[in-house]
């Protein structure tokens, strides 16, 4: 009986979403999670159960969950929850039966609840245990064998049906595909300028890549400033995920002297030297090779970059290369998208993300690298959106078991193909460190659905996305050929006709100033090491926390 009701509501919601103005998408699936069923008693919302969730999500004095410290609840998040809650409370107040839009809200609240609980303890810097490291390593090995599929094994399943949800949105055409990342950024009021000036805010203690927190000059928006081997890869990885319909974080690459970091006199870190010392202390990474210039902002600098005007006499530092990632005020991060809970693993769009991870060769697929957010679309309209973040551990990853370290962006480590194809069987050849439930149960048809989206990536789109990542030209050229080849291998695996074939050369050779840099599709020279301190060849990685 209840299943019939849920199927009916599901069908109605799909119909509704075709006409609805909102771009949140729908959450309710054919099968309700049991947690959702428990909130509805005799077709009415259970007020007591509802308030257990809404009080937990909004009560600032509840600071612990499972003995772990909960993150501070952001005002906008509380406001969003209260808006949602009040719609349901009013329904109960008037003794009305539950409507389909109420079920959507209940499901949304359940996801926020689970996500916020998942985030407990996330702001406390912790070291990965040996057991965790071993598990990451085991997953890395296991994943190379796990994802095998028989071709056309589920031919009759409807693979083309696009259902928009908070986790995925259809990108309608190739022009939109190319601009999707910028479109998403604009909707979040992220404004990365050609010459960027940001203010040091505070040190960061989480993650393995060296980074700090910075403020935009509008003081509303924040940035995460990063250095190292992810400054190119994260930029391309995020843009590919966005082009294929996923919401993402927004990293931008900045080349030599294109970004100025200003130190406020009252800040904890007051100059470049203190920055180097702090980053060395926290991340065990020497920032010195990444620094281009530093000193005091002078009138000559201001004449070239007007935005430096208010900072005459302030300490600054500029870099040879770096990346900044937007932390816009309009987006509040909760916790993970809880892929293993609430039937989220049954979402085709989340299962199909396995193929996108494989396409970019992403290794770090842990749950923590997904994020549930509320996006403020203006006029107190909030939208739930699940994002894929930290996609920089990709595009050529070297993982070492002893010492336990890893390095990313090693172009030679990125295979030319994504699948191993043996007559009727295809096997994904991408190592991942966490096998989330959606990936574990992903089917051939789920992946084929995404493979079709990948087939829409044209040569122009691929070139444009790679250019944004800022690699030096020869490296970018090699990546372009490899990504085109990987795309072709995906289409071949699913027997898809390539309507936008991209030419590639697996025997690519590039000679620059008489020096052979790339030979037979392999980088053989550590290209301009002075300008690229992270190195495109050296496999010496970062040991701190092994990805945690």
């Amino acid at each position: 009986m209840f299943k019939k009701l849920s199927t009916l509501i599901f069908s109605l919601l799909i119909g509704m979403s075709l006409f609805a103005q909102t771009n949140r998408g729908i959450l309710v699936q054919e099968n309700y999670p049991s947690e959702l069923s428990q909130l509805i008693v005799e077709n009415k919302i259970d007020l007591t159960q509802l308030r257990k969730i809404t009080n937990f999500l909004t009560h600032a004095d509840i600071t612990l969950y499972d003995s772990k410290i909960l993150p501070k609840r952001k005002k906008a998040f509380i406001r969003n929850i209260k808006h949602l809650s009040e719609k349901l409370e009013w329904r109960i107040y008037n003794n009305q039966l539950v409507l389909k839009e109420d079920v959507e809200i209940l499901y949304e609240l359940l996801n926020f609840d689970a996500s916020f609980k998942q985030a407990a303890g996330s702001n406390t810097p912790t070291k990965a245990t040996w057991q965790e490291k071993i598990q990451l390593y085991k997953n890395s090995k296991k994943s190379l064998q796990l994802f095998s599929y028989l071709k056309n094994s589920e031919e009759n399943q409807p693979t083309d049906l696009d259902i928009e949800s908070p986790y995925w949105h259809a990108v309608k055409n190739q022009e939109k595909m190319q601009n999707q990342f910028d479109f998403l950024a604009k909707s979040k009021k992220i404004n990365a300028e050609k010459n960027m000036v940001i203010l040091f805010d505070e040190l960061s203690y989480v993650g393995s890549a060296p980074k700090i927190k910075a403020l935009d000059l509008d003081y509303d928006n924040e940035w995460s400033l990063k250095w190292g081997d992810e400054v190119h890869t994260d930029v391309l990885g995020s843009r590919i995920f966005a082009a294929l319909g996923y919401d993402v974080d927004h990293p931008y690459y900045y080349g030599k002297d294109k970004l100025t970091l200003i130190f406020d006199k009252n800040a904890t870190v007051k100059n470049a030297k203190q920055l180097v010392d702090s980053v060395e202390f926290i991340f065990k990474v020497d920032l010195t090779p990444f620094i281009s210039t530093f000193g005091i902002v002078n009138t000559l600098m201001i004449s070239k970059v007007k935005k430096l005007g208010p900072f005459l006499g302030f300490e600054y530092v500029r870099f040879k290369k770096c990346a900044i990632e937007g932390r816009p005020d309009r987006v509040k991060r909760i916790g993970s998208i809880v892929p293993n809970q609430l039937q989220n693993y049954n979402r085709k769009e989340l299962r199909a993300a396995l193929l996108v991870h494989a396409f970019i060769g992403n290794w770090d697929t842990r749950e923590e690298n997904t994020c549930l957010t509320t996006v403020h679309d203006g006029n107190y309209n909030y939208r739930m959106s699940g994002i894929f973040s930290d996609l920089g551990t990709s595009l050529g990853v070297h993982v070492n078991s002893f010492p336990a370290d890893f390095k990313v962006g090693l172009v030679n480590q990125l295979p030319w193909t994504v699948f191993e194809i043996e007559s009727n069987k295809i096997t994904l050849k991408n190592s991942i460190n966490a096998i989330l439930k959606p990936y574990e149960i992903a089917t051939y048809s789920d992946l084929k659905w995404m493979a079709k989206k990948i087939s829409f990536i044209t040569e122009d789109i691929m070139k444009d996305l790679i250019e944004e990542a800022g690699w030096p030209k020869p490296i970018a050229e090699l990546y372009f050929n490899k990504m085109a080849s990987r795309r072709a291998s995906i289409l071949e695996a699913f027997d898809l006709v390539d309507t936008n074939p991209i030419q590639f050369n697996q025997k690519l050779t590039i000679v620059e100033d008489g020096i052979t840099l790339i030979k037979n599709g392999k980088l053989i020279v550590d290209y301009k090491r002075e300008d690229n301190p992270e190195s495109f060849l050296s496999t010496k990685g970062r040991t701190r926390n092994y990805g945690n």
Partner: protein
Amino acid sequence: MGIKTYTTLSFLFATVFTFCQGIEIQRKYLVENPIEFQKFLMENAALNDYYTYHHADYVYYDLYFDTPEFDLMNNGLSLRMRKKNEGTPEFTYVFQLKSEMETAQGLRMEVEEPELDFYMLHYKMSELNLAQLLDTIFYKFENNSSGEFNFEYEFTALNYWIYYKAEGPITPFQKLSFLFPHLFNAEKIASLKPIIIGKSKRIRNHIYFENRNSSTQFGTQLTKTIINENTPLFFIENPETHWLMESSLDSAVFYPLFPSDKSHLTIFEFELENKYKEDSLGSWMMNTFEKLLQQKFNIVNTVNSKYLQSAIAFRGIK
């Protein structure tokens, strides 16, 4: 857990932080000669090198709540719904729970429900939101010349809303049940009723120093705080000034909504808030300015909130 313990715990971090930096947040005074003092503030006058700049006039309408046993007052708390106009064309509405100040230089706990216009209720067979109901109440209050109020329908709707929301995600209710889990259970919260209504006018001033005077006063130039989103326009347009304090002069009249020998109470209250966030200089400047004001206008330190003063007066507590 008593309010004292809570306040101590709740503000431990803030207090340690502020004491480390020598920052005091707020001081409050009763004003005996409001007319002369108001003139001083409105005319942007100065005391020694402390300049004032009158930049805004605010209007507040307040509806205070308590239980029939005055449990909030007895525990050093006040709870109000406020309609406010802070110099913008719109009115906004908040539901606030505050603690009394422990000392003249103390901090106050304050939590609020910042938006009341999406909370719906039934009133006279129709549906309206909480902000609209408050509009109705304050309209009747403002347009009542007799001093005898009849809010029967409005308070019925309001009381039912409180009853329904007692265990809901309403910040002041969450805080009450957190502070006093045994006293402020759902039943007790549901018994909260409007007991005092009033209106306040507030005169807002910046208190500032001119850069050219700072070296003669302090032997050194004051450090300029970096401009941010909280910096008032006046200090952006006048970069040679230093924002030291923010002041508020309130003229308020309150009326009891329960039988009382006193028909109303008028309160003139002045507040200073430190805005100079560097070492102990901010406190020193507050002390100096306070002394100058005491000498000239005979202002007197107080800790009692307007609610506490009114409730004491209306209940005839000596």
